[in-house]
């Protein structure tokens, strides 16, 4: 995504342009020459004739500053080009070739960085003569080590990317890979460093001049002007202030331009760019009964303000959960399933707005303040995240991390907490738990880390465990171990588990109830067996048929869902799945379907034209398929017409009849 450079960038660029232009055209500008003494009264302040006043010899300060820019900018640009010219090829060579070239270049660079650069520049300029050329060469050469380091680093990040490997597989020659694949990518960071480098060189040249070791008088330089002005500080401060301010603005501009260019390429940095929360739209919840269950989520909404618009990440999700049950939340990336968990726990970024209610044993958590919430989090609500590699603090021991909730929440002493931690780690199947306490996360495998995070989540015996894709980052055999462990712990501790997963087979095996999410909404909900055996929402059905299964024959054609999940910014009206749905009709485009409920098992679905429920025959899939195909017409197999849970939609959903097949042919590939 192209990022905007912002006003500051353009102001800074204009200032640089202005100074550069003035320096180039200095001879043509209508003011006295820099060395013309008594152009005005000495030490006079700013006036119409001398906008920046005059110095001790009556020379025009503006003229001297503008001529000084020639030296400062000339050295700045020249030294950077010199350093870049030498440093960039070496850096690219070191970063791309690696091995010997890299080792040699970096060793030399190590030594070079240990030299005190400015002191060296001083000595060289003093001994070799203070001329523009010498200053430029010295500052340029002294910048080479930094250039090598920066360009090498930039090259490395791209040389290891797969597109370079892909180019080699294509048979591209090295030279072409360098020019076509690497150099264009390194160019932008290099440009950014170039501007920051110019700022550094302008300051360095100023320092030399300040010590009297740059271009010799009478030719002015900014550093020299400041040094001269120092003596008049008390009587005529403008003489020292004028060049100081100009120099400051110029250096600032170089820094700003460089920083903006870097921010444009640095994804991590730009990702952190804070977004101001817009005026939060109120998210009211309709009146509703509070049930006597462990966890009740009522019309939960989470909206984000992004630079592109409002994102409804979670849009009206309700469910209840009882002790000893596992609720699975299924969906593809961007469906809002992880955000739902974070929303329930109140762990949302500042740019979000939350609506609806979350009741834990009848207490409304959304009414809790931060301190009250902390007394519930960890203590009654446990959490496990997807990636065990990032879920543990890399610089703290396992012991410190596992005992922390025990000591904070349960106020255990050090010794007691350690003993409990050992018991906990043993209970999640970690061998030699006492030794484990002294280790750091990077010393453990992924499976072990996930066991540790589970142990931490369970340490205060929570009532509900939220597991957000707990096994996605693990190998299949380890996945199985971890899921079995979770299931066993649920039984032992009589917890409720909320399991978020994109993996339907995991959900089918371990969940009692399932919620299917799409574009932030619940599109289907019911007992896991029921939902997977008889999906009503076309999305659920398509998802089930799109996932390859071991029981399918080889080269089996998977169901293809065309397109991809919708952009959550400015979601069109109607059903969010409409654009990808083979059964969509006009009504789907205009009215969002509410959740309809069907049958004795509280099977809910959000669809105007749901798939008809297959005959309740819990036999093999083959049988079901045959029966369905044989019956041909579907309306007979629907004993009761589903009734809408809410009346907002007007008429109830219609079951699909054969004519929807035409839609299949035109849309399904």
């Amino acid at each position, binding site marked *: 995504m192209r990022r905007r450079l912002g006003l500051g960038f353009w102001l800074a660029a204009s200032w640089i342009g202005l100074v550069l232009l003035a320096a180039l055209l200095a001879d043509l500008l209508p003011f006295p020459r820099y060395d013309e003494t008594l152009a005005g009264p000495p030490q006079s302040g700013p006036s119409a004739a001398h906008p920046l006043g005059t110095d001790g010899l009556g020379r025009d300060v503006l003229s001297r500053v503008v001529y000084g820019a020639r030296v400062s900018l000339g050295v700045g640009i020249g030294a950077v080009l010199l350093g870049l010219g030498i440093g960039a090829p070496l850096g690219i060579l070191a970063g791309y070739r690696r091995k010997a070239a890299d080792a040699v270049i970096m060793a030399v660079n190590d030594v070079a960085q240990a030299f005190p650069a400015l002191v060296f520049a001083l000595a060289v300029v003093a001994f070799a003569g203070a001329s523009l050329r010498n200053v430029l060469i010295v500052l340029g050469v002294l910048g080479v080590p930094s250039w090598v380091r920066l360009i090498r680093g930039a090259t490395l990040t791209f040389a290891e990317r797969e597109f370079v490997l892909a180019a080699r597989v294509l048979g591209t020659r090295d030279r072409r890979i360098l020019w076509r694949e690497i150099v264009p990518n390194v160019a932008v960071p290099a440009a950014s460093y170039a501007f920051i480098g110019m700022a550094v060189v302008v300051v360095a040249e100023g320092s030399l001049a300040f010590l009297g070791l740059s271009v010799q008088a009478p030719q002015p330089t900014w550093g020299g002007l400041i040094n001269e002005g120092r003596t008049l500080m008390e009587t005529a401060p403008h003489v020292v202030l004028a060049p100081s301010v100009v120099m400051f603005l110029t250096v600032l501009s170089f820094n700003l331009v460089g920083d903006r260019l870097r921010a444009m390429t640095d994804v991590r940095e730009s*990702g952190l760019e804070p977004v101001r929360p817009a005026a939060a739209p109120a998210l009211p919840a309709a009146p509703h009964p509070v049930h006597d269950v462990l966890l009740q989520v009522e019309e939960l909404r989470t909206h984000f303000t992004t630079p592109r618009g409002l994102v409804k990440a979670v849009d009206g999700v309700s469910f209840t959960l009882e002790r000893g049950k596992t609720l699975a939340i299924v969906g593809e990336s961007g469906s809002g399933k992880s955000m739902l968990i974070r929303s329930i726990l109140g762990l949302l970024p500042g740019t979000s707005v939350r609506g609806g209610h979350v009741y834990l044993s009848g207490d409304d958590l959304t009414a809790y303040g931060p301190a009250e919430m902390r007394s519930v989090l960890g203590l009654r609500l446990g959490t496990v995240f997807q990636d065990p590699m990032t879920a543990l603090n890399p610089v703290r021991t396992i012991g410190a991390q596992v005992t922390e909730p025990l000591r904070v929440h349960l106020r255990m002493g050090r010794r007691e907490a350690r003993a409990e931690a050992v018991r906990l780690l043993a209970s999640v199947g970690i061998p030699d738990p006492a030794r484990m306490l002294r280790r750091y996360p990077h010393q453990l495998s992924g499976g072990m880390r996930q066991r540790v995070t589970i142990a931490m989540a369970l340490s205060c015996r929570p009532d509900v465990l939220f597991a957000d894709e707990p096994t996605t980052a693990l190998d299949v055999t380890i996945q199985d171990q971890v899921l079995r462990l979770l299931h066993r712990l649920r039984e032992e501790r009589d917890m409720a588990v909320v399991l978020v997963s994109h993996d339907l087979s995991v959900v089918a095996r371990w969940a009692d109830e399932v919620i299917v999410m799409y574009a932030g909404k619940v599109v289907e909900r019911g007992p896991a067996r029921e939902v997977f055996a008889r999906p009503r929402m076309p999305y659920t059905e398509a998802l089930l048929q799109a996932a390859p299964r071991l029981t399918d024959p080889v080269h089996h054609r998977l*169901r293809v869902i065309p397109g991809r999940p919708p952009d959550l910014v400015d979601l069109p009206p109607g059903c969010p799945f409409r654009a990808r749905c083979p059964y969509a009709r006009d009504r789907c485009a205009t009215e969002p379907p509410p959740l309809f409920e069907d049958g004795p098992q509280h099977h809910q679905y959000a669809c105007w034209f749901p798939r008809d429920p297959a005959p309740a025959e819990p036999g093999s899939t083959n049988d079901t398929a045959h029966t369905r195909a044989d019956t*041909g017409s579907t309306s007979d197999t629907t004993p009761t017409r589903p009734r809408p849970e809410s009346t907002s939609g007007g008429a109830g959903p219609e079951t699909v009849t054969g004519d929807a097949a035409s839609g299949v042919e035109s849309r399904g590939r």
Partner: protein
Amino acid sequence: MAGSGSAHLRPRDEVLLRVEDLVVEFPAGRGRTVRAVSGVSFDLARGETLGIVGESGCGKSSAARALVQLPPPRSGSVRLDGLELTALRGESLRRTRRRLQMIFQDPISSLNPRRRVREIVGEGPRVWNLPGDRVDEVLEAVGLDPATAAERRPHEFSGGQCQRISIARALILDPEVVICDEPVSALDVSVQAQILGLLEDLKARYRLTLVFIAHDLAVVKNVSDRILVMYLGKVCELAPSEALISRPAHPYTRALIASIPGGGLDLPPADQLITGEPPSPVDPPTGCRFRTRCPRAAARCAAEEPLIRQIGEDHWLACHYPAPPPSPTGTSTPTFTTTAPSITTSTPSITTVPASPPQPPRITTTTAIDVQATIDVTANATPGNATPGQRHSRPTPLPATPKPPTPHFHRHVHEGRRWRWR
């Protein structure tokens, strides 16, 4: 198991790609070596898809990269149509590259962010001095609309679309073998199905030979004719896909299948659970590399590395004590009460005869699997249109002469830029 040997290789004139005793090793710092691939052999007949499956660290990706000599393997032979690739260097190696292409896992990282799609896809022909006018054709073949897609840059596309571009880049050179290294593991289920379908279409259309590498056995089975199971740099089992899934003999293969919920096999509990985690490839176990996690391991497994041997029609195995075939109906498993050696059993000498000798291969003629699925999925894709035995098949059968898939590109482009949370 997890052994060596090359008994399973077919006669040279039948195969397009023949890999023999491949060894890939990397320095791991402090003088240690990562033994990523240790003596793996396999071959590919023309037009075949070979699936390679295994967990992270089993060496499947290292093997893939060794095939294209990036970097070249430590030792072993890679023959493409009789030409020994490992003996080639520099320009002569470069000249073979057209015939062997690769698709990578990360669809974002494998495309240069600063180049346009037309340049990315057209890079191959430019390098090889071929006419570049096929860019539009291959873009259409992978389901992208050249008019809208070609002038855009990778960041304007979703992961699935980027993977299509990667495929187009490989295809335009008319390669003989395409190595797909986890091509769908970064994608959502619905997009994954699109890409798998696309690969099958393109394979037929361009008569490709595929090496399909993935960690997901169900995905591999979906596209592969034969499957090679790897563990810690060694081959465990090689068999036609159907046979491997329905009659797995290697304890590791069985564990892999058992750990997939709804895998369809009703295995005895003893075989389902493998404990522990894979050892480090820096310091692999002696003998059979799987023995540290194997429920059937015995003393012989530590002392003697199993060699690959045949146990059925084109079914190859590297294991001293393979499991007997599971009962396919899943009702009862009487064979399992026979004594399988366990670690606690003291085995006096390493010459012990395997306690459960491999049963004669049971070759079933039918391809249908009659195992019970844990998940019952109703097949109701096309009411009134579905015929028995054609469940889940695409509504429109693929025509004999494939026409380019309908481009759904117009709609996606303006949905455009990937949406980010932060």
